[in-house]
């Protein structure tokens, strides 16, 4: 993990227009937008595991997908290995995709139920023309199955997804990603569908290959306890914006933003002697269609004052690589 940024996201926005009925479309001039990702900027260093955390609807998955251009950004730039990938054309982007991959949350949906494990893993090889012969493809597929610890590989290649457990499916999905030898992976809640007892095994195969290949990760999760143990740094998102970004240690131990603090208090601790959360904030995340003016957290914030209702706070550096967007942090 040296100083250079492998991935740089600058003022990224993804707004989805709200579809309305024909009458209201004809009558109103203004289109409303869901501001799923609204002016998000951050950097991820080479080999770093960067966590994107927050509650459902905060825009963490949309951020991940927009970075990979699986969704086209509304505005903003994404630099990967120094190149602005938002300006690449289709052919150039396809080449880039080999290096930038995603692992999805639900292995029951992300792999095709009518393909065998061999077909699933060999498909990206043929799409990107990485093998010259069937024998070579076979070799790569077998090796990748061994890497994700589905051994002996012969037992798995002919199977269909329904013949695999949830954990084995996720291993296949990881193998499919890894055959391309990507240098950057967005992992979108890769373990949240799986049982507790097998989660660590899945993480291990993902991170083992990380050490071997120096892969950079964006790890999207709602589970802060896992984020705490997996990620080096992380950002907390609320209604499409990053409210705080720091090392995982600092986020957990010294949260500055009132929302980060509220989240950390709410996380249940697997220790009965630990004092239960007392000051749980009320309310729920509002709709991102018409977010509150000023700081988006202000209606739920105990520290909210006049300026919070008026001005949107900027994400500013408060300590070494500790960024906070709060008027009251200064």
């Amino acid at each position, binding site marked *: 993990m040296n100083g250079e940024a492998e991935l740089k996201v600058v003022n990224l926005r993804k707004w989805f227009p709200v579809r309305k009925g024909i009458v209201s479309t004809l009558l109103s001039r203004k289109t409303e937008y869901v501001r799923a990702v609204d002016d998000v900027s951050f950097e991820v260093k080479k080999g770093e595991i960067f966590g994107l955390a927050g*509650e*459902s609807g905060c825009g963490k998955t949309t951020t991940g997908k927009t970075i990979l251009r699986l969704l086209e950004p509304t505005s903003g730039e994404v630099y990967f290995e120094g190149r602005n990938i938002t300006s690449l054309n289709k052919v150039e982007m396809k080449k880039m995709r080999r290096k930038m991959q995603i692992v999805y949350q639900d292995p029951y949906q992300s792999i095709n139920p009518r393909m065998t494990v061999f077909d699933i893993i060999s498909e990206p090889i043929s799409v990107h023309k990485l093998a010259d012969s069937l024998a070579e493809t076979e070799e790569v597929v077998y090796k990748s199955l061994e890497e994700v610890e589905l051994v002996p590989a012969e037992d798995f290649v002919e199977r269909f997804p329904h013949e695999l*457990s949830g*954990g*084995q499916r996720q291993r296949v999905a990881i193998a499919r990603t890894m055959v391309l030898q990507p240098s950057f992976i967005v992992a979108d809640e890769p373990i949240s569908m799986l*049982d*507790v*007892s*097998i*989660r*660590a*095994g899945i*993480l*291990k195969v993902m991170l083992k290959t990380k050490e071997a290949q120096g892969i950079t990760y964006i790890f999207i999760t*709602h589970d*802060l*306890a*896992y984020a*705490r*143990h*997996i990620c080096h740094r992380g950002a907390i998102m609320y209604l499409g914006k990053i409210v705080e970004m720091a090392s*995982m*240690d600092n986020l*957990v131990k010294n949260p500055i933003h009132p929302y980060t603090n*509220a*989240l*950390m*208090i*709410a*996380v*249940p*601790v*697997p*220790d*009965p*002697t*630990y004092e*239960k*959360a007392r000051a*749980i*904030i*009320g309310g*729920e*995340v509002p709709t991102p269609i018409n977010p509150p003016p000023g700081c988006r957290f202000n209606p739920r914030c105990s520290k909210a004052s006049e300026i919070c209702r008026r001005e949107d706070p900027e994400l500013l550096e408060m300590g070494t690589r500790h960024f906070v967007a709060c008027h009251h942090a200064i």
Partner: protein
Amino acid sequence: MKILDVQDLKTYYSTLKGDVKAVDDVWLQMDRGEALGLVGESGCGKTTLALAIMRLLPWNGRIVEGKIRLDDVDIISLDEKTFDKDYRWKRMSYIFQGAMNALNPVFKVGDQIAEAITIHEDVEKKEALERARELFKLVGIDPERVTSYPHELSGGMKQRAMIAMALACNPDFIIADEPTTALDVIVQAQTLKVINDLQKNLGLTMMLITHDLSVVAQTCTTCAIMYAGNIVEYSDIETIFKDPVHPYTRALISAFPSIKEDRREMKSIAGVPPNLLNPPTGCRFNPRCPNRMDVCNKEKPEYTELNENHLAACHLLTKEA
């Protein structure tokens, strides 16, 4: 007298491939006012156990043998009419998994709660609606919201409305099946607080079913660990976390991350939970157990009483004794 007493319960599902032994020889007792966490991974039989207690098993599920007593009344042998009239929803209630999607979208929430009351009790609709408002207050929702439709409520409010509905006929025994699993962390904390307060203030006996050890740690007084259709360890909540004896309990606890710990490598349990069509012989955990001995795949371990209120079924304990 125990409020709930489950003895040697076997509940199987018949499938084309044979019987799925979802609950096999389960023992469980609960005292009045106890908050028990029933913990296990998916497919271990925890929901089946709850459905058997509520007599709500699907068509292919059946209680093969065993006893379930509620206040010393054998509720399995009661005829359906009596059970429905006097027990289900009246004495005992169930908060379904994914309960927030269990509300009927075309009726107002208040009416749905009132309906449950009028079916079980001889009261006018007006009085039932008044009770619905009281229940809303109890779970921390503005009583005026009884006239809302489900889509007008947030996820957390729907979940509370379901809790209110479960309390509609003043039951004293409640089963909550993964009540917070689909909720975000802050709403989860809010909902758990509501459940916790209700359980204490109303003196409810509660069985909380979850896969999440941290939820149990912060909500329950006792804990039963279930694995592949068996309850492998039962104890008060402090002991389970401080001195777990069953290798599965130990492994599960160390696989569970805490936000309060320093960064560490996550541990997993080798292998996968067994298929309950053909569960392993002997101790069902033996194929995954780090402490496996010769006897483990031959004989099913009996419960050893380590302490008053601490039981575990493992051959390691009898060997040492």
